[in-house]
């Protein structure tokens, strides 16, 4: 693994933290008490001057304060997370969530990243065979408030933001509240929401969604096959194909922005060219189509035999689909594929789609002349990847590649 990945979590011990906290990281002290409310003061060394620590949402340190009497005194009554395993990944402007009970600290928003995602819920009404983030049947409705807080705290506005889950539309009215908050606080930020689209088959739901009138909001909806039974099988839900297709039509009728996402694996690769034709014939209004490689996470590991096919072995189908969509003037991209496994004609369609925090390159990649232009691999693909990953020699210079961040937002 040749790329250093930024950790997104840490843990510590909490004191005086009676609720879950969502707040913005500051590494330098803030003078005005009134501005400290939504901040976590992250400091490696706690001093004895108590007034330095009052008024923050929390103070976070990697010192073990139970053994540091001076600091302990200074922090009496202050919401505190101490003994944190690491602090180094946190920079000013990051937004973190602290679990008051467990001391688990999750980075919700990284100011230095262009791959930030609002995690809407763990719940889902599908159960896809290749889900990288298997759903949980839990009540996580408190996430809505956390996300609303986070949206309010994001500054400056990023170019792109994703919404993911779980299935975000299960939030129903709360989703619209999140959308309205995005429109209000981050009006210039393009938002790509990963959704199975099934809820949009309900017209009243889609009408409410459309009524938010967020011009930079796009629903990214998976369609795995032009064969309804196969789509239903892949997402493990009866009538999902019908609901999703109806949903896409309902969205289109209200002029909503739509992206189609197709994960390519052993069950779906064969009819890719047919699916491409189905999309143009039936939904020419979608603004982008992403054809995506498998992320070896979640259920994929358990269903590996059923799903895994070396990308080199579906190049004909992928090429057919991409060429067709490109020829009819649709905007098509390839995600999650290494350049060395793609036919050269497909290189201009390949995007650097893997979020930075889980994006790796192999040792072999260091010898590659197009490494900088390649999207690399998922961290989870370190041991399971194409057998054909091989450094490309310098004389095989490819055409210029584009990194379209709007394409890759929320590709997970």
């Amino acid at each position, binding site marked *: 693994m040749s790329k250093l990945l930024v950790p997104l979590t840490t843990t510590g011990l909490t004191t005086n933290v009676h609720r879950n906290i969502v707040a913005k990281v500051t590494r330098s002290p803030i003078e005005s008490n009134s501005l400290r409310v939504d901040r976590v003061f992250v400091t490696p060394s706690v001093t004895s001057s108590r007034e330095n620590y009052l008024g923050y949402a929390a103070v976070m340190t990697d010192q073990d304060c139970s053994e540091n009497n001076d600091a302990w005194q200074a922090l009496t009554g202050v919401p505190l997370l101490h003994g944190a395993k690491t602090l180094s990944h946190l920079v000013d402007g990051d937004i973190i969530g602290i679990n008051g009970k467990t001391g688990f600290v999750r980075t919700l928003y990284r100011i230095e990243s262009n791959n930030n995602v609002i995690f809407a819920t763990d719940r889902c009404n599908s159960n896809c*065979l290749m889900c990288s983030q298997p759903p949980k049947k839990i009540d996580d409705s408190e996430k809505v408030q956390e996300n609303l807080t986070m949206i309010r705290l994001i500054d400056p506005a990023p170019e792109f933001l994703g919404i993911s889950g779980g299935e975000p539309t299960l939030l129903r009215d709360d989703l619209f509240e999140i959308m309205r908050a995005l429109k209000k606080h981050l009006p210039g930020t393009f938002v790509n929401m990963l959704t199975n689209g099934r809820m949009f088959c309900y017209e009243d739901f889609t009408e409410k969604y459309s009524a938010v009138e967020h011009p930079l909001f796009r629903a990214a909806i998976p369609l795995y096959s032009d064969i309804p*039974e196969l789509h239903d099988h892949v997402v493990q839900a009866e009538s999902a194909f019908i609901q999703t297709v109806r949903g896409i039509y309902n969205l289109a009728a209200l002029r909503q922005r739509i992206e189609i996402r197709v994960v390519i694996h052993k069950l779906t690769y064969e009819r890719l060219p047919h699916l491409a034709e189905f999309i143009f014939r039936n939904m*020419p209004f979608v603004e982008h189509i992403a054809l995506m490689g498998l992320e070896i996470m979640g259920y994929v590991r358990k*269903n590996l035999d059923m799903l895994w096919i070396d990308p080199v072995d579906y190049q004909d189908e992928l090429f057919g689909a991409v060429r067709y969509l490109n*020829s009819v*003037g649709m905007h*098509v991209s390839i995600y999650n594929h290494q350049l060395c496994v793609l036919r050269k004609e497909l290189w*201009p369609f390949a995007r650097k789609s893997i979020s930075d925090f889980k994006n790796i390159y192999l040792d072999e990649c260091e010898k590659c002349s197009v490494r900088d232009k390649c999207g690399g691999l998922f961290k989870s693909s370190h041991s399971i990847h194409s057998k054909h990953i091989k450094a490309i020699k310098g004389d095989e210079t490819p055409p210029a590649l584009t990194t*379209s961040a709007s394409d890759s937002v929320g590709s997970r």
Partner: protein
Amino acid sequence: MHSPLYRDGYIQNGTPYQLLPFRFAHLANDSLCLVNDLGEYYFVTPDQLRQLVHKKLGNGDVLYRDLRARHFIVDDNTQGILDSWIIKYRTKKSFLDGFTKLHMIVPTLRCNHSCPYCQVSRVSEDKQRYDMTAELAHATVNLIFKSPAKAITVEFQGGEPLLNFPVIKLVVQRMAAERDNHGKQIDFVVATNLSILTTEMLNFFKEYKVDISTSLDGPAFIHDPNRPKAGNDSHAIFLENLERARSVLGIQAVAALMTTTRLTLDYPKEIVDEYLRLGFKSIFLRSLSPYGFAVKTRQQIGYSIEEFIEFYKKAFEYILELNKGGVDFQEVFAKMLLTKMLSPFATGYVDCQSPSGAGIGAVLYNYDGNVYPADEARMLAETGDKTFCMGNVRTHSYDQLFSGDVMKRLSAVSCNETLSGCAQCAFQPYCGSDPVNNYATQGNVLGQRYSSDRCKKHLAITSYLLSYLRAKDPEVMNIFLAWISDGTVRHMEQPVNV
């Protein structure tokens, strides 16, 4: 996490299915082409067709899956989205939205050319008699503004319309000034031979964004005899003025049409090359309009439809070769048919629609105020047969014109879905009805379509194109798909980006 991780049972064999409406035609030995109302097509063997209609296909079969995805069959798993059929059908018929979109005005019948294939123009005749008056032009503008379409095209036809430039100016200025009040988008086009184009006219066209549609029949040795004028310099003047027009209006603002005569038939390549040489991106290979030629003229310039089809194929194959060599160049008639076959979209070509474009898609206001549902209808009128005169701008209201007897008579025969013969034809979704043509060539609005030249031509070219789609050569398919999108062949190194 539940165990097992997944469950089977979503894919079951043996679900019953129903047929959706489709028609079929023999294309070649052992090959049938199925076509449905949405323009989707599929090639099967006779044996496969039997299996299909006798409900012998299982949903694991590729044939079953292909046909279901293309709306030839529906089953329990697709019943819930059958209204996508409706959405697609409505899209195919969306040329009807807003009613009449093409409004043609004839400012004058006078012309300085004497083309043998033109039945309309009068050379150097009485100006008073053949020019539209300013008063009539105003009345015509008032009428056009009553048309419900939001986006319309106003096209000046002739004669040579520039011979009555004041009326063009009057109409364009008034419509440009008032279009916002009427909530209309208006495109202007002048159909002109370019020969009397002045700088004043060009500047006016530039200011008001008026496009030019002109005529080019090929290199000088074809163009000059086809389009004679005093001095016999038609082609030379065309070249000179084409250059001037492009330099002021831009290359995209000038389009050209060709008409095929007997002389043309031997020179498909030369004609295409001339269009290419002059920087045109497309050519419309048009056969002669079949209206009332004198016997002498017919012998001179006419030909059988079979000869035209042969010419068309030669030119088309040459164009295809050019495209394979990387030249972006389209044939407009093929593009129209391919759009119906390969895309979910409607086409705007009024001569090949169902309901027919006559009056519904296009209307023509003649220099004398008479209103006709098509250019061909006024040509008939000029030869003495006013069957299709809808009324007069001066004496008839919008409703009287567009809901009058002529439109009622035309509407009754304007859907090829309901015309016997057409209704059963596999190519019906790719074709249209043309009652004015039927009347002109066969004496009544219904006609005997299967014996008409129009039908022969459409059948021949449609099956010709379908044979390419059946062969499915990737290179050719790529060219066709490019034609039906925005016309540029997309090479893989230049992906479409938003």
